[in-house]
């Protein structure tokens, strides 16, 4: 983090405001820069309305540590909702600060209700998210040599194949391995697949019996000749969808001793990824699997005595898809509307939007991007890339969310760094950190003009400041993207492809995942460090808070409140996510709650999805610039002239215009009272 203690002197631009006592006029709206005392002794004469009057600094003490006492004469006009901000890059007065506690509670309760609703929709209406169906491959015999035309073997139903039950039977009939076809029809009899199932992935399991003289060799590879076909009614011909030769590594272990006593017992084999299709556009699927033998090429030699092939297909439940789509369809306009509303507010301000505001907008956009229910198209169209597209959308949102946290912390860190400067106003604060610019530099900087400062601000306002923190996010998500493209991207062409099947692929995939993991660790280190810094600053400055002028205190209390609020909400959301994730993992599906069955997994998905939507919604709503400044003229604005500091005395005044329609928060009420006194 930058450890710069540069002064941030922002002379008030000419605005026609006297600065001492400010009546709420429209012309002051743009006057949101207000003068800020630098962290060293500075005497700054600020002519009211004098943008040209640069501050002059007088350095009293030098050395490693500088003791400053500020004798400032400043004019300090603070519009409480907006111009309270000392710096443009810090957020303008947000709604959250201006909202009365009561309203905040109401908003919170409404959000919580929606949250509960999201959980209930998943838990009570939706079925479990996915279904796993077992299939036991039927062993068909390719009797006649009709290889010229591709023949499809049906495990059951009309035109079913010639079956054998065991391979002992095949042995007796002298059937060759190449003539044995494992047939699996998806789904089971009397059922049909539907495009509501969204995706289908199939896992392969071999039942391999242990035989003393036919053991699985180390690192045995099984070569599978597999073809996939589909049809949409029970009578028409099968249409080939994919055909491939695949290799899978058998990783099996035999738990008991390898003696002849234990012959016939099964190996324990790992699951093998087999197939993944990104859309289920057809009603019936047929898999024909062969395990050809070629001794010369050492294909399928030493793979043990395969007894059976079992498949497990996993697809999303139609009911869950419907609930999910409904949720997305409902959430999209909600987020979209609040986003437009938010951005309108930003653009209505006379200053350009600051980084944090842009990031919040980007967060909203990525949320909308994830929300837009383009999946509806998958019902009508056979879009196999939907799975990949969903991954990409999620990836974008996650990286956006992570970036948002970093930038939010960063911006508040700077805000509080300035805050450190603020407290110097009271004098007696040591600034002896290393990396301080030399006094002369400071002076020069102090002496610099608005343009300089603006330059500084724009510098801070740039994303590039955060390259260290955002870099890992971008790089990590890029790695995952590449990995995803390698796996799911290739699967668009060949549904049987698996990156884990080959040695190189496994290493590559692992490399990507490890890099992404390192990036994640780096990111969290940065984030924790930043949060720690912000808190350190906050707690450090809290002590000097009471001695501060009220307006400044308000401003910083607002800043702290804003930060702490987000921290709290974020931590709650993250904790909820983790807790519900664990619950849904541990609980294994569903709870019985009276007569109702609560689908914990579905509740987790809808609830967490709803939660992050509400989170983004709340951020956009609460952190939008307050609208109060637009209603200035009409509102019964009152001017509070506060004494800004006992030491600096003089005309160090604060004028706060309270133009709230909503009713002030406690702090402002207090000020109002005092002002009246």
């Amino acid at each position, binding site marked *: 983090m930058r450890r710069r203690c540069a002064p941030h002197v922002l002379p008030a631009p000419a605005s026609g405001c006297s600065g001492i006592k400010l009546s709420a006029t429209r012309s002051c709206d743009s006057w949101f820069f207000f003068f800020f005392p630098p962290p060293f002794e500075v005497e700054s004469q600020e002519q009211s309305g004098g943008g040209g009057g640069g501050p002059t600094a007088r350095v009293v003490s030098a050395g490693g540590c500088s003791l400053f006492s500020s004798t400032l004469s400043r004019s300090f006009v603070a519009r409480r909702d907006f111009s309270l901000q000392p710096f443009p890059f810090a957020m303008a007065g947000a709604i959250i600060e201006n909202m009365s506690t009561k309203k905040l509670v109401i908003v919170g309760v409404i959000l919580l209700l929606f949250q509960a609703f999201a959980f209930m929709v998943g838990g009570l209406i939706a*079925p479990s998210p996915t279904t796993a169906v077992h299939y036991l491959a039927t062993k068909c015999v390719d009797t006649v040599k009709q290889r010229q035309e591709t023949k499809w073997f049906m495990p059951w139903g009309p035109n079913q194949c010639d079956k054998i039950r065991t391979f002992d039977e095949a042995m007796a009939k002298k059937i060759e391995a190449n003539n044995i076809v494992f047939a699996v029809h998806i789904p089971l009899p009397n059922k049909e697949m539907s495009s509501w199932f969204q995706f289908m992935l199939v896992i392969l399991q071999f039942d391999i019996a242990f035989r003393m003289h036919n053991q699985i060799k180390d690192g045995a590879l099984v070569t599978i000749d597999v073809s996939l076909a589909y049809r949409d009614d029970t009578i028409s011909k099968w249409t080939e969808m994919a055909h491939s030769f695949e290799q899978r590594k058998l990783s099996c272990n035999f738990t008991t001793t390898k003696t002849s006593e234990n012959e016939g017992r099964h190996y324990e084999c790992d699951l093998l990824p087999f197939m993944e299709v990104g859309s289920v556009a057809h009603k019936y699927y047929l898999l024909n699997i062969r395990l050809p033998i070629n001794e010369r090429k050492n294909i399928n030699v030493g793979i043990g005595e395969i007894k059976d092939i079992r498949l497990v297909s996993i697809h999303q439940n139609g009911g869950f898809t419907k609930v999910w789509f409904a949720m997305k369809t409902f959430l999209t306009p909600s987020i979209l509307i609040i986003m437009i509303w938010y951005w309108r507010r930003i653009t209505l301000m006379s200053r350009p939007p600051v980084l944090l505001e842009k990031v919040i907008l980007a967060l909203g956009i990525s949320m909308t991007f994830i929300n837009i229910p383009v999946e509806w198209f998958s019902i009508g169209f056979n879009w196999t890339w939907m799975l990949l597209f969903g991954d990409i959308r999620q990836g974008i949102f996650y990286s956006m969310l992570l970036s948002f946290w970093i930038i939010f912390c960063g911006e508040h860190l700077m805000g509080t760094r300035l805050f450190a400067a603020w407290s110097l106003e009271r004098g007696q604060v040591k600034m002896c950190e290393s990396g301080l610019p030399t006094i002369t530099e400071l002076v020069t900087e102090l002496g610099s003009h608005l343009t300089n400062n603006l330059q500084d601000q724009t510098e801070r306002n740039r994303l590039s400041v955060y390259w260290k923190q955002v870099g890992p996010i971008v790089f990590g998500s890029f790695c995952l993207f590449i990995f995803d493209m390698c796996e799911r991207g290739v699967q668009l062409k060949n549904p049987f492809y698996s990156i884990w099947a080959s040695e190189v692929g496994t290493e590559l995939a692992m490399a990507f995942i490890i890099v992404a993991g390192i990036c994640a660790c780096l990111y969290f280190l940065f984030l924790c460090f930043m949060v720690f810094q912000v808190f350190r600053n906050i707690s450090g400055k809290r002590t000097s808070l009471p001695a501060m002028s009220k307006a400044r205190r308000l401003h910083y209390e607002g800043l702290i409140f804003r930060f702490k609020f987000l921290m709290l909400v974020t931590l709650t959301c993250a904790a909820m996510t983790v807790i519900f994730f664990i619950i849904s993992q541990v609980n294994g599906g569903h709870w019985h709650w009276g007569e109702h069955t609560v689908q914990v997994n579905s509740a987790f998905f809808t609830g967490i999805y709803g939660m992050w939507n509400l989170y983004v919604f709340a951020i956009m709503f609460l952190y939008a610039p307050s609208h109060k400044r637009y209603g200035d003229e009409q509102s019964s604005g009152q001017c509070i002239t506060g004494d800004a500091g006992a030491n600096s005395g003089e005309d160090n005044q604060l004028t706060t215009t309270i133009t709230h329609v909503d009713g002030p928060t406690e702090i402002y009420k207090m000020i109002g009272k005092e002002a009246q006194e």
Partner: protein
Amino acid sequence: PWSRSKMLDGHLLLGWLSFTVLVHLLNLPGPTAAYFGLTGNEPLSILPLNSLPEENIGRAHYKLCDRLKLEKKQRRMCRRDPGVAETLREAITMSALECQYQFRFERWNCTLEGRHRANILKRGFKETAFLYAISSAGLTHAMAKACSAGRMERCTCDEAPDLENRKAWQWGGCGDNLKYANKFVKDFLGKRSNKDLRARVDMHNTNVGTKVIKAGVETTCKCHGVSGSCTVQTCWRQLLPFHEIGKQLKQRYETSIKVGSSTNEATGEGEISTGRSQQQQPLPLPGLNDQIPRTMDLLHIEDSPSFCRPSKYSSGTAARKCYKDKNCDAICCGRGHNTQSREVTRPCQCQVRWCCYVECKQCTQREEVYTCKG
């Protein structure tokens, strides 16, 4: 086909044992608690599975259902679906073979020859308990397997009219096979409320069979979230191989609990008490009138006969093949064994492919064959 296949796995004994399955057995007189499979009163002659053509067209399976000698309700369930008949048959084979495999080194070698089996079933031995348990376990296992092989017309998502069935599947998938199998077995074997102790013990042992299957279920999960992460994962339940089930049941057979009854004159009800191991005399426990201990243990009422000499329960161990230094002493009941030396030509140094092709040399060996003296 069986004997030929066993040439490979070296289990000559098992191959030999399996012949007994093929023996045409007598019809059993219907004992009170003869349910199905090894405990049923059907002849086990239908076992060679490929003897029947696979045609399920029309009512071919009715014939099979009739041959299985089922009760009225069972026959109805059998006829409902052509797959059921086939599955029942497979269940019998599975449990019979497993029983023989597990008892291959015991005095009672799970001989399933009709008369002996029927007599054992009439009593409350440990062996009876095992037969009941392996029977129901076999049926559950076979049923779940048949479901996943698509052999059954209705499986999970059962009990609903076709349209609703389809809707249920489209909305939320169906329950897993094991659930269905358990339900089927429960229905099929019936829940008889019987006051007779033996019937209740039999019922208990039947339930132990299904419970062992249930307890042996392994949950396997697959992660398929973003980039294959575990944010989304699907779990399913997987049955243990039937060999494992057989092994566990054999262990339960060995630690079977004896329950005894003291007849209450007034009510005629049996009171049940438990006691571990055979030597311990069962103690009559008043107040436990209707309770069978809720355990996963197998229960028996009487001590088993020795099975050494030919009796109504077995043909004895005379001329049984045994393994020297291993089980000859035990099997032959101390009568000693005959040693026969003979030349055997058998395939050796086999090269086996995963299926159906074995390349062997023919080796001639001298082999000692031990059989129990009569």
